[in-house]
């Protein structure tokens, strides 16, 4: 049925594109004011293989967009303020201007003349972006939900399809999807409440794992695949939440216990070091280095009297060596960034695939950064260990989860900058020196209408090198019918 919808959508899109005819206007007056547009695509850097960056002029009157590139000029008339590019036109524009910039001038018809607003530029990078992203769509709520699902989006078209939706398993909770090296042939996600378990998919073989053991405080939670595909690092967390009476963050989500463990995909055993499972500290958010020989994680000295002393829980960025040959850990933990010293807390360390940079989220306390208005993205240069904020990327509102593209040139991250509550995915270019450019909001066919109407948050945006093809029917059958395989603890 999804295929039928897709073809209908394509037909509708084609019709819309055809109806948006090119035009030929002359600007008779220029003003220095920059046009108000949504999304704000002014002066962003985009990959040449991205879908058309349709956008809307947020103002009154007839509008026209004049696009100037290396090979001439193109005009698009706005329909209800929306500038919608034909796919072929856009592709041509991207190919012709790869490595260069295109100039966009919004012209508004005022008092019987076309007035040109201050032009802006879009830089077209020669670095491609991974063709797919996946994310969970959830209500940005607190305890309740009804519909949620994990979806994938083709970045070269506007097509969004579901990987798994909770309507197939009685509206339970699905979360924490993760892929090995962005390759969906090795993927996993968790299911909570009814039919609970961890779904592990390896080359279309689907397993359901029961991951609670006597030695761990909870089922496996935040995942990160080892680049070899043999292991997955997880945190185990006993998580609680309370609601502030006035704080703009609204909620504090906190762990009263947490550790980091590594799961062996082949033996179905978990292992840990006393350094990642300390009684005196909370460890969480593990992430392997691209060579698979280091395990990064966040660690905070244990705080009693939670939640009352919630603002004393501060996580540092730590690293321990990991030996993939025998699944053993190093004998000491390095503190890469002591956030406590700065009265800050770290979450979500993610190393770029080229191993040069590590980006993490920094906020005032705790680990649940999506509910921290002050949360920003920071970068560690792993060669110099210099730690700096991603100033071009950050906003006054939340920046939280992030992931790297395969070529280390693109960073997708979640942000609440558009309205303060509903999380949206933004993509930023990172150049070879590790400098970031102004990010752009995930393009949509009609982004103004789409994002206004979308009552879900984008959660855990992850790049993928290809589409997930595993049948949700099969996943559902495994979840509903399989008792699951019990995970055990490796005893040394």
């Amino acid at each position, binding site marked *: 049925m999804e295929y039928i919808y897709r073809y*209908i959508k394509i037909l509708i899109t084609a019709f819309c594109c055809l109806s948006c005819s090119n035009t030929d206007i002359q600007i008779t007056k220029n003003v220095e004011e920059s046009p108000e547009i949504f999304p704000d695509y002014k002066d962003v850097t985009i990959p040449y293989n991205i879908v058309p960056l349709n956008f809307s002029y947020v103002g009154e009157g007839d509008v026209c967009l004049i696009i100037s590139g290396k090979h001439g000029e193109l005009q698009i008339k706005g329909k209800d303020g929306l500038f919608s590019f034909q796919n072929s036109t856009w592709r041509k524009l991207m190919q012709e201007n790869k490595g260069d910039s295109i100039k966009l001038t919004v012209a508004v018809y005022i008092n019987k003349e076309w007035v040109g607003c201050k032009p802006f530029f879009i830089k077209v990078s020669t670095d491609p972006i991974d063709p797919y992203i996946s994310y969970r769509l959830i209500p940005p709520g607190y305890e309740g939900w009804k*519909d949620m699902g994990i979806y994938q989006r083709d970045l070269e078209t506007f097509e969004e399809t579901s990987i798994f939706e909770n309507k*197939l398993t009685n509206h339970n909770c699905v979360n924490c999807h993760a892929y090995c090296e962005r390759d969906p042939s090795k993927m996993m996600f968790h299911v909570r409440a*009814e039919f609970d378990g961890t779904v592990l998919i390896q080359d279309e073989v689907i397993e359901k794992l029961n991951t609670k053991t006597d030695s761990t405080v909870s089922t496996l939670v935040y995942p990160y695949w080892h680049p070899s595909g043999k292991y997955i690092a997880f945190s185990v967390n006993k998580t609680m939440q309370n609601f*502030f*009476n*006035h704080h703009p963050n*609204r909620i504090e989500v906190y762990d009263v216990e947490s550790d980091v463990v590594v799961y062996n995909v082949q033996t179905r055993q978990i292992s840990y070091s006393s350094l990642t499972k300390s009684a005196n500290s909370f460890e969480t958010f593990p992430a392997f280095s691209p060579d698979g020989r280091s395990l990064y994680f966040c660690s905070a000295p244990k705080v009693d009297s939670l939640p009352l002393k919630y603002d004393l829980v501060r996580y540092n960025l730590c690293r321990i060596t990991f030996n993939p040959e025998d699944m053993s850990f190093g004998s000491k933990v390095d503190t890469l960034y002591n956030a406590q010293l700065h009265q800050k807390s770290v979450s979500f360390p993610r190393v770029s695939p080229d191993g040069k940079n590590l980006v993490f989220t920094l906020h005032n306390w705790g680990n649940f950064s999506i509910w921290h208005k002050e949360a920003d993205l920071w970068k560690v240069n792993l060669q110099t260990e210099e730690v700096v904020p991603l100033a071009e990327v950050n906003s006054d509102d939340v920046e939280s989860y992030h992931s790297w593209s395969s070529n280390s040139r693109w960073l997708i991250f979640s942000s609440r900058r558009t309205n303060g509550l*509903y999380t949206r995915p933004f993509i930023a270019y990172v150049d070879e020196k590790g400098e970031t450019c102004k990010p752009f909001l995930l393009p949509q066919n009609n982004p103004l209408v789409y994002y206004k*109407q979308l009552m879900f948050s984008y959660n855990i945006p992850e790049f993928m090198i290809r589409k997930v093809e595993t049948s949700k029917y099969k996943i559902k059958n495994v979840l509903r019918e399989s008792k699951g395989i019990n995970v055990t603890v490796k005893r040394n």
Partner: protein
Amino acid sequence: MKQRYQKILVGGVFLFFFLVIGYLLYDTLRFSFFFREQQQLFLFDKAYCLKLIFNPGGFAVWFARFIVQFFRVIWCGPIVTGGLLALISFINWRILRRLDNLNWSLPISFIPSLFLSVSLLDSYYYYEGITAYLFFIIGLLLYVKLSDGILKSYFRLLIGLFLTIIVYYVAGAVTILFSVCAFLFDLLAGKKNSLLGLCYLLVAVFLGFLSVRWGIEGLHMYTYTPADYYEITLPMPFVHYVSWWSLPIGMLFIFIVRNYLKNLFSSNLMEIFLSVGILFCYSKIYYSSLDHDLQKFYQNEYLTVEEQWDELLKFSAKNASKSYSDANYMNLALIEKGILTNSLFDYPQHGPLSIAFISNNKVPDIRLAHVLFTMGNMAATQNLAFNACQIPNGYNPTMLKMILQIDLMRGAYPVALKYIELLEKSLFYSKWATEQRKFLFNDELVEQDAFLGMGRRSFPKEEAFVLYNSPMDDLYKILDTNPENTKAMDYALAYLLLAKDINHVRDFVDRYYGTSGLKILPIPVQEALIFYSDYYHTLDEDYALQHGISKEQLAYHLSADLEYCQLHGVTTETIERFVRFKEAYGKLRQNQSTVLVGYEKTFWHYLLFAQI
């Protein structure tokens, strides 16, 4: 002439059925229909409509939601539903009479509608169960009519197959019923090559199979049974199958009677007997399935949403002694009327849970959201109201309005705008939503607004977690920040009185008496204060020290003497009344048969006799 008379008679029967079922639904389910409206937000929006319609069965869902939005008007639900059920019965009769034009096919044609009305007693049975049935029966009538004059079997087959697919797309799982009925009709009507009708069943099964295979539905149960129209997380009661089965069984029954039992069923007596039998069974099942407690909750909710505080008070007070939920609504009505503390003991009260009952389960609690919202506990309300919006049919409009107002109070304007734009696409909430636009990005106007301004000024200065201990802790923090919040003040006083916490009543009076929120001490509070004063002044010092009261504490308590009471709002009349009460109570203690007449509605009576 006879035919005309018959037409009028049949029309009269269906009109009568409509009136009777409409009245029955009005009498028993009108608030339930209203609550159905509160469980959805229909949007006049292309994307919203297309998203619904593009799914198998989506048109029935769209149509159901379109209709249900009008149930905001209390009489609309019963009338529209009565009309739909009468229409279903009428079409049903048009189909059945083609099998045999006997009079008693008329009562049989009512059975599906009657059991659909029983299904509506269950709030987890979605209204699309009715609209889907309507589309199915229309589809079946079309099939019967279109295939009537067709001699070639394969034409009939094509029509049937086409309608099977259409019914599936329009109405969902009920297609299986369509295919069974279409096949059965051909078979029982003696159509040529009637077994070809089995193809409809095969196609219906195949469509259901595809829906599961493509991940549109989780289980075959949702593609072949009424469970498609039932809350997915719950097991569906058997009764919802009856409306489905009754039609094919009715067809078979007619066939058997026509061919084998015609003599037995041809008399009018049998017709009457059959009608009475159906009515008896129906009324038995209907009334035994009616959940009176749930209907009471719906009525409380209706009166709250409609802000009919006098009616709410009258209705909820009837059951307040048996149910905390009703007591919460009753006290909500009292506070909205501005008489909570003064009239507290005029009504049945059973401890502080009568003010705010917090259930341990995680079911979205809209009652509690109303109470906390009125208390000024906006953060806790926001959580509850948001969770209450996570329902299958979209947002609960009343809860969404609450969230929107809280976001305006918080100054979270972009997200408030998002909700305004959403509500503006609805029929009944659009005007209200547009009126809220003026507050966007206008702090001054928000602060000037009586309601929003009060809410904004009442956000506690002292940062803490809400509902961490009890609602009273939050009320203290609200009042610390804004003692002008009279509703929070009244709720706090009522809470302390109902908790029989006279020590904190004294602290509270110490702190707030004379402020703009507590210029006059309500009579029950006066009663509590004079009791407190008397209690400690008559308490043996040694006894007090032995029972954990320190000398300093005792000195503090004793500082509230008669003069203190008078200075803090206790009137001479209350003091004199207390003296008389003490005498009466003394007599009561000596002679158990004496009754404390005239003091039943006092704090003293509640303190000494009410069990909490």
